[in-house]
C-alpha cells in the first residue's frame, strides 16, 4: 500500500532541514501528527480530519498558521509604491481595515495571494508560507530602498475559526474597544492573558473567525488559554484544506499560480476598485482588464463528482472527443457536503452552472457537474448585518 497522491502535504521543491513552528512541542504534546509542509513540520491532524472538520463547522478550531509570512511594510509613499505590485486600492484602506489581494507578475499571473491591513505605522501583510521568501525578494526588488520590509518572524499566527470562535475568544480579550467592534475584515490591537496581540476577523474556512498574531515566545500561553475553552480544539492542516475547499477559497500553488490571472481564478473582487481600473497601472493590467471585459479563455469552477470516489488535483477534464481541455486543481471528499467535490479550470464555454463534465483520473473516467460555489455557505459576520 502506498500513497499515490496527497493533497494536503505537498512536496517541497527542495529537501532541506525542516523548520519547527514555535508551537511544535505544543502540537506534539496534544497528539498532532506532524508532516512536512511549506518547509515546516506541521500538524496534519489530531483526532481525524472528518471529526476536526465537523468541529470547526459547529464549534471552534484553533489552527497554527505560523508558517505563513507576516510582513510589516513602512516608509514614505508606501501606498503608491505597493499599488505598483498589487491591484488593490491600498490608498483607500483605513487603519484597521483588511483586504485580500494578489501579488502579480508583469504579465498578470499570480505570484501569491495575500491579506493586508493598515496599521498606524504601515501596512501589515500575511503571505503564504511556501511563497514568503520569494515574496520578500520580489517586494525588496520592486519597492524603493526607502521602504522598510520587516519580516515579523518572531511572531506566531493562530487562526481561531468557527461559529463559537467569538464566544471563546471574547472571554480572554481586553482592548481599547470590545471584540464585537471587529466585523469581517477588520483588525486591531488587543491583549489575551496580558499578551499583546493583533487580531483580525478573518480566516480561510468560510466560518466566522479570527487570525491572531502573537510574539512567538508567548504563543503557547495564548494557545493554552484558547484551547482551555470548551468550544475550542486544536485542528490540523488536513481539515483546513477540506474546509477552505468547501468555502470556495483557492489555495496558492494548487488553484492559483503564475499561469493564472485573477479573472481566470474568478477573483474579480480583487480588481474591484474603479480608481485602480481607470489608472490601469498594476502589473498585467491590460490583460486582466481585457479578460474582465471579454471573459478569460479558461476559468475556475466548482464541481460535484458523482459517486463516492474523490477526484483530486491533477485529474483531467475531457471534452466529448476525449481531449484534455481542463484540469482539476483541488479535490477531495467534502465532509460537510458528504460528496466528492473539486475545483477545476475549464474552457469558459464549459463554466456554466449545470454543465456536465467528464474527468479522467489514473485511467478511470468520472462524471461531474459544474455547481455554484461556495459548496457550503459562508458564515462571516459582516458590517451592518444583525447577529
Amino acid at each position: 500500500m502506498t500513497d499515490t497522491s496527497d493533497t494536503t502535504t505537498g512536496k517541497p521543491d527542495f529537501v532541506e532541514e525542516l523548520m519547527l513552528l514555535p508551537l511544535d512541542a505544543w502540537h506534539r504534546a496534544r497528539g498532532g501528527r506532524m508532516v512536512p509542509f511549506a518547509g515546516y513540520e506541521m500538524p496534519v491532524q489530531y483526532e481525524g480530519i472528518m471529526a476536526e472538520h465537523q468541529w470547526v463547522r459547529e464549534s471552534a478550531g484553533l489552527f497554527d498558521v505560523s508558517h505563513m509570512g507576516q510582513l510589516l511594510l513602512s516608509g514614505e509613499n508606501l501606498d503608491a509604491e505597493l499599488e505598483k505590485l498589487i491591484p488593490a486600492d491600498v490608498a483607500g484602506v483605513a487603519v484597521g481595515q483588511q483586504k485580500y489581494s494578489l501579488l502579480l507578475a508583469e504579465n498578470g499571473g499570480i505570484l501569491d495571494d495575500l491579506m493586508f491591513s493598515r496599521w498606524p505605522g504601515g501596512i501589515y501583510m500575511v503571505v503564504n508560507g511556501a511563497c514568503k521568501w520569494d515574496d520578500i525578494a520580489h517586494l525588496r526588488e520592486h519597492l524603493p530602498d526607502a521602504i522598510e520590509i520587516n519580516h515579523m518572524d518572531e511572531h506566531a499566527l493562530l487562526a481561531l475559526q468557527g461559529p463559537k470562535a467569538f464566544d471563546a475568544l471574547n472571554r480572554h480579550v481586553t482592548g481599547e474597544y470590545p471584540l464585537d467592534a471587529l466585523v469581517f475584515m477588520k483588525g486591531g490591537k488587543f491583549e489575551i492573558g496580558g499578551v499583546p496581540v493583533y487580531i483580525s476577523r478573518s480566516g480561510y474556512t468560510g466560518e466566522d473567525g479570527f487570525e491572531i498574531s502573537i510574539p512567538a515566545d508567548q504563543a503557547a500561553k495564548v494557545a493554552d488559554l484558547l484551547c482551555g475553552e470548551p468550544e475550542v480544539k486544536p485542528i490540523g492542516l488536513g481539515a483546513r484544506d477540506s474546509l477552505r475547499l468547501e468555502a470556495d477559497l483557492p489555495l496558492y500553488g494548487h488553484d492559483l499560480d503564475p499561469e493564472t490571472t485573477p479573472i481566470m481564478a474568478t477573483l474579480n473582487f480583487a480588481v474591484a476598485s474603479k480608481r485602480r481600473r481607470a489608472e490601469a497601472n498594476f502589473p498585467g493590467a491590460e490583460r486582466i482588464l481585457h479578460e474582465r471585459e471579454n471573459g478569460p479563455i479558461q476559468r475556475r469552477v466548482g464541481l460535484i463528482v458523482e459517486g463516492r470516489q474523490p477526484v483530486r488535483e491533477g485529474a483531467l477534464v475531457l471534452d466529448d472527443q476525449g481531449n484534455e481541455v481542463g484540469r482539476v486543481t483541488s479535490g477531495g471528499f467534502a465532509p460537510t457536503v458528504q460528496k466528492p467535490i473539486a475545483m477545476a479550470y475549464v474552457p469558459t464555454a464549459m463554466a456554466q452552472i449545470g454543465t456536465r463534465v467528464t474527468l479522467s483520473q489514473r485511467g478511470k473516467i468520472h462524471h461531474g457537474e459544474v455547481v455554484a460555489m461556495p459548496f457550503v455557505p459562508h458564515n462571516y459576520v459582516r458590517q451592518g448585518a444583525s447577529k
Partner: protein
Amino acid sequence: MSRYFTEDHEWIELDGEIATVGITDYAQSQLGDIVFVEVPEDGKEVAKGDDAAVVESVKAASDVYAPVSGTVVEGNAALEGEPALVNSDPEGDGWFFKMTLSDTSELDSLMNESAYAEFVSKL
C-alpha cells in the same frame, strides 16, 4: 489458519483454498478517515505486487497491492456503502477481497504477526 503481512501493510489470511486480503490496523490509522474503497472484480488475475485495490482517505488516494499471485474471487461489497469499515475493523469486516493462490510458496516471503509488529514498531 495463519495470517501473513507485507511491508506495504497488507494482511492475507489463507483458509483452505481461499485467502482474504485487507490492510492492517497500522495502515488505516495512518490513512485516517476512509471515504472510498475500490475493490477488484471477480476473476481478475493479479501477480504479487500488482495494484489490486484503491483506498481513499479524506486527504489521499493509496494503492493496495496483491500480497501474492492468484485470482480474485470476491470483492468486499460491504465497503461500497460503508468504506469506514476499514477504519473500524480493518483486520475483520473491513477486508478488501478474497483470492485463490497460484503459488502458495509466495507466502513464505511474507512476515508473520510478530515480525510485522516488530517491523511497525521501528517505523
